[in-house]
């Protein structure tokens, strides 16, 4: 039993990271119409920048985290200028493939810069573990859950409780009308990409101390975040949270009790079941409305 509780707590931690990444994926889709297949690679960049920033600052966590967020903001701006702006008038398919292409390039550049040796990083809360009865969890696990919850709360406040947020939502609904209403659409698009990259980057930072960081770390995370977005339903914050947690639980418990070799296949099986039975996900849009 205590093993089960331990697994569930770990699953919730991994799941909250998936939720944050799913949110980054969905914000890009809702605000800019881009299905961003480079989301996973953004997580990789965040994790690797984190590792370097910790070395650079002599493990001063606050400044390292700040450096990562700044670095990801730059990545977001580059993405906005280099990928989104030139492709935004093209059909959705072309943009999807553009993100795939840039994801491949980014991963390769990361490999050239950081090499292919796995890197271990530290957590600001150290590597201590807590024991309640027979249940042993690392402090970092709880830290991940807390930070993810705060991030998601922050995104919620930004989108639904701020003036900027209503501009974001206006943009998501109808970019033309938003422009006519005097919203500075391009500035908002660039802010969206900064937000998306920052979220993915922090997810990478949180992942660092849990898994060893290597250049393909984000690939699997990206795919599972897509699954989480479908399971939870596109364009809904509770959907992203629940989708992320469900994917984390399915993966962790599936690996423990069914088969660790097939754990990702089990996640995709769950995704396929949702696509068959409830394609709009738990909280999603009506899918017939969107092309």
């Amino acid at each position: 039993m205590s093993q089960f509780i331990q697994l569930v707590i770990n699953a919730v931690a991994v799941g909250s990271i998936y939720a944050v990444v799913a949110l980054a994926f969905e914000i890009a889709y809702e605000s800019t119409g881009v299905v961003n297949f480079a989301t996973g690679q953004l997580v990789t960049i965040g994790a690797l920048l984190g590792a370097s920033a910790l070395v650079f600052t002599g493990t001063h966590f606050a400044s390292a985290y700040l450096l990562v967020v700044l670095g990801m903001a730059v990545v977001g701006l580059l993405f906005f200028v280099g990928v989104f702006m030139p492709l935004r008038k093209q059909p959705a398919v072309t943009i999807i493939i553009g993100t795939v292409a840039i994801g491949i390039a980014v991963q390769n550049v990361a490999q050239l810069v950081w090499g292919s040796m796995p890197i271990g990083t530290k957590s600001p809360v150290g590597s201590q573990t807590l024991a309640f009865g027979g249940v042993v969890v690392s402090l970092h696990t709880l830290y991940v859950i807390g930070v993810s919850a705060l991030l998601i709360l922050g995104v919620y406040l930004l989108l639904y409780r701020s003036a900027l947020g209503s501009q974001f939502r206006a943009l998501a609904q109808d970019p033309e009308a938003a422009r006519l209403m005097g919203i500075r659409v391009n500035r908002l698009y660039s802010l969206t990409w900064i937000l998306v990259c920052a979220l993915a980057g922090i997810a990478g930072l949180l992942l660092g101390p849990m898994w060893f960081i290597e250049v393909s770390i984000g690939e699997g995370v990206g795919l599972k975040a897509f699954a989480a977005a479908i399971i939870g339903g596109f364009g809904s914050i509770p959907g992203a949270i629940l989708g992320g947690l469900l994917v984390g639980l399915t993966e962790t418990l599936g690996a423990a009790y069914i088969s660790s070799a097939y754990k990702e296949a089990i996640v995709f099986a769950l995704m396929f079941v949702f696509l068959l039975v409830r394609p709009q996900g738990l909280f999603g849009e009506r899918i017939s409305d969107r092309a």
Partner: protein
Amino acid sequence: MKLNQGTAMVALLAGFAAAPFLISDYNLRILVLALQSAIAVIGLSLAFGWAGLIQLGQAAFIGVGAYGSAIASMRLGLDFWLAMPLAMALSGLVALLIAVPMLRLRGHYLALATVGFNVTLEIIAKNWQGLTGGTDGISGIPGIRLFGREIETDTGYYFLSLGILAAVVVFAMLLRHSRFGRATIAVRDDEIASGTSGVPVVRTKVVAFVISSALAGLSGALYAHYAHFIAPADFDLWRSISILVMVIVGGEMSIMGAVFGAILLSFAPEWLRFVGDAYLAVFGVAVLLVLIFMPDGIAGRLQAWTRTKESRRV
């Protein structure tokens, strides 16, 4: 202009006929693989270019064909000419099972579902030791027998692949101008309008997806019996992406463009060898540049260019 097209066609055929005697053995092997890939690329351009389906998992269907044909010939002792149609049917059947529920959904759902499908099949191929040999793959796959003799040279496989590819090109061209071909393009351009004009939208998309996958299966079967060895890594997501890039480079709609894209992209790693480890970075950025500056593909751009040149001459 008629004459020009005629001479171009003759020159092209002569070039294909002479190619194996002019290039090195190594390049010939790449060319054979390129022709085999071209079959899957034509399939994908049918689903993606004509019908507008965002299929990001074509390699999964190449894999189903390759494993299907390899297993059928090794376990059941079937000849290639029986195993190959069986593998095509298997790829088509798997596609049908996925397509019926998925093609009710649009756009990014299909993209995500096909990615998920590709990754799932890769996991199964890696772990179902008893059937697929796991990560070690299957080796010792028998070659192809033609007219009672086993093909032993790369030149032999070249002409076999070229012949099958030519048949696929003719099939695709006939299909393009058939009622079904026009229907797929109508569905891509406007689902609602084509639906109200009596085009069965979902059925058209399902059929396009199934044909596309069956052609991928054919490509995979040829590959398995030519290479004599297959492993899960041959059919990963990366392979799907490179097939898709071949379609884009060739121009989404053009059948000969698909062949051109397949050949160009198969040789690209050789030509870009000087960039060394940065190959994928160069590749990714190059694809992005093609998407930005040549959305009709390189073939489409060439075609437009020759057309304006010709009209100027007249």
